[in-house]
């Protein structure tokens, strides 16, 4: 029997939706093979990784708490990715957002003012925007590749954070730990229940999802940007400016990542330390792709990615496996999604036998 790969006459709409599901299922399969190779019972290990973390209210709270920044950042990134604007430095934009928000929270003259939280939100968003404006300016005006610039700025942002927490912003009462003082209570989001960490910042993500949907599916600029991504020549012929897409795409990602950084310090963290993100900015890239660059798809893939983070922590505690396994799963998930996407445009046909 022989097979041939051939192009579909029309891209398959079914496969477009099915590909992420197939990729997620195959990632589970690859995961069980990996666990088996490491000498663990795959069923037990998969249970410990994917089911056990959600078995309690605290687990559910942590699930949503981690999904929130992933979804928020992925929404911002998706706007750029649709236009082929490759912001892969959301991690850095998240860090500067957290730094700016903490700066406001710590140094605002009246620590009990109810203005602190909104000002921190604003500072986080503006810092993320400013950090993303550098690659936007360089790409739009100087023709400089935004992938490399956003990445380099991520390294610079984490050095800036390191300098602040080891130097000028170090908490004098902090036993010499590299961390800032705790934010005042007025600079923190209210948890829904003080036994758990999930807090009201999750509403920001809900609003962002809705705004992303409005922008990508209901606005003219969003439409123009999608055309620019799918068919650059057509977009140019129609007179859609590329630089507008570059600026919008990068700044949307920067704002989302900056706000996510703010929500991390004003939520679960409460202060700055050298490590403030377990790689949300990078994981959000995968979330955006697995979610098909669509706001509602991103919600689902963000929940999946959050589970990968939780599962990594759970097997680290329970089975003594390094939490780096999360990044292995992330990589496999994106590999498999990309491979599955092939079948949107191609299909395998069995060739009739003939002599």
């Amino acid at each position, binding site marked *: 029997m022989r097979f*041939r790969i*051939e192009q579909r006459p029309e891209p398959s709409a079914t496969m477009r939706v099915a590909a992420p599901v197939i990729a997620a299922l195959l990632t589970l399969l690859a995961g069980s093979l990996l666990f088996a190779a490491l000498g663990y019972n795959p069923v037990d290990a998969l249970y410990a990784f994917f089911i056990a973390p959600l078995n309690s209210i605290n687990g559910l709270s942590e699930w949503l708490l981690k999904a929130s920044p992933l979804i928020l950042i992925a929404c911002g990134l998706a706007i750029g990715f649709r236009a082929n604007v*490759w912001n*892969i430095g959301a991690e850095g934009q998240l860090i500067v957002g957290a730094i700016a928000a903490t700066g406001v929270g710590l140094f605002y003259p009246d620590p009990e003012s109810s203005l602190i939280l909104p000002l921190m939100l604003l500072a986080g968003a503006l810092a993320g925007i400013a950090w993303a404006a550098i690659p936007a300016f*360089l790409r739009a005006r*100087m*023709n*400089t*590749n935004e*992938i*490399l*610039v956003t*990445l*380099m*700025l991520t*390294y*610079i942002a984490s*050095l*800036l954070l*390191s*300098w602040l927490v*080891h*130097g000028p912003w170090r908490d004098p009462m902090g036993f010499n730990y590299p961390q800032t003082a705790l934010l005042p209570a007025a600079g923190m989001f209210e948890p829904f229940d003080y036994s758990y960490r999930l807090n009201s910042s999750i509403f920001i993500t809900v609003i962002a999802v809705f705004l992303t949907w409005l922008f990508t599916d209901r606005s003219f600029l969003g439409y123009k940007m999608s055309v620019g991504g799918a068919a650059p020549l057509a977009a140019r012929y129609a007179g859609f400016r590329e630089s507008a897409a570059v600026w919008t795409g990068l700044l949307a990602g920067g704002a989302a990542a900056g706000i996510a950084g703010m929500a991390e310090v004003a939520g679960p963290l409460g202060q700055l330390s050298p490590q403030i993100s377990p790689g949300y900015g*990078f994981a959000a*890239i*995968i979330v955006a*792709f697995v979610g098909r660059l669509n706001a509602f798809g991103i919600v689902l893939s963000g929940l999946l990615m959050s589970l990968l983070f939780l599962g990594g922590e759970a097997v680290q505690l329970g089975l003594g496996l*390094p939490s*780096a*396994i*999360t*990044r*292995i*799963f*992330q*990589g*496999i998930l*994106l*590999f498999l999604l*990309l*491979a599955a*996407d*092939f079948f949107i*445009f191609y299909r395998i046909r069995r060739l009739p036998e003939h002599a």
Partner: protein
Amino acid sequence: MDLFLAIFTGTVIAATPLIFAALGELIVEKSGVLNLGIEGMMLVGAAFAFWAVFSGLPMPVAIAVGALAGAASSLIFGVLALTFLTNQYAAGLALAIFGSGVSAFLGRSFGSAPIDALDRIQIPFLSDIPVIGPMFFRFDPLVYLAIAAFFAISFFLYRTKGGLILRTIGESPETSHAIGYPVIRIRYLAVLFGGLMAGLGGAYLSIAYTPLWVENMTAGKGWISLALVVFATWRPLRVLLGAWLFGGMTILQLQGQALGVAVPSELLSALPYLATIVVLVIISRHRQTLALHFPASLARPFRPPV
């Protein structure tokens, strides 16, 4: 004089991993493929080479293990980009994340154990000449291998038929296919070579440069190598010069920290990243120079018509 010597030799050593990785990526890009996953391939090479030394394997074997691990990881990218025709940006990013995960996972088994670094060569007479000896004849063998790779790749690209075919494929895979060259097979070989070289660069970091395993120890060197290829406008000699420039920057920054220059060490550490941005901006403004040397089919998926 001692300071000059320290800066000179330090520069050559710091540039070596960049030379390996960037020359490998140069070959990949010349074939029209863009692999953004260098950082991941270098980490995989670093972790596997370290693991080999840690398990008591001899140095040459460890170097080969690192290089082959890099090549094996690049094969994942190759299958996606060349067989499944995926977006090459996304496939490369996935490889970068995957490689950092795999290396960190493997790295847990040896923690922060030290190993003996790769020995430096000692040539009778030559290594003992004052100044000249330490400047040129006392490096470890991989430093010389990197330089040899530069000459070999320059010769291959511009003086052999194979190099001409590779460049033709990078310019126009359609034409090359029509003439009868196996475009996909050659691109696979180029991708594997890029992985091999990135693996070597990573191995150099973990068993010669800082004989120690640290999670994410490449610290952006893979991405800087990617920038070097653009900076070099896809020409080998400029890759070499660019790598020395960045190596020199790294060493000046370390010397600055050692001399206690009155600026925060984080600012000095940020210099190579800042320099990468500045250099990219300067090069990218010359659109015509870029267009002249840019492999025309770069990052564009190609499927031979049936």
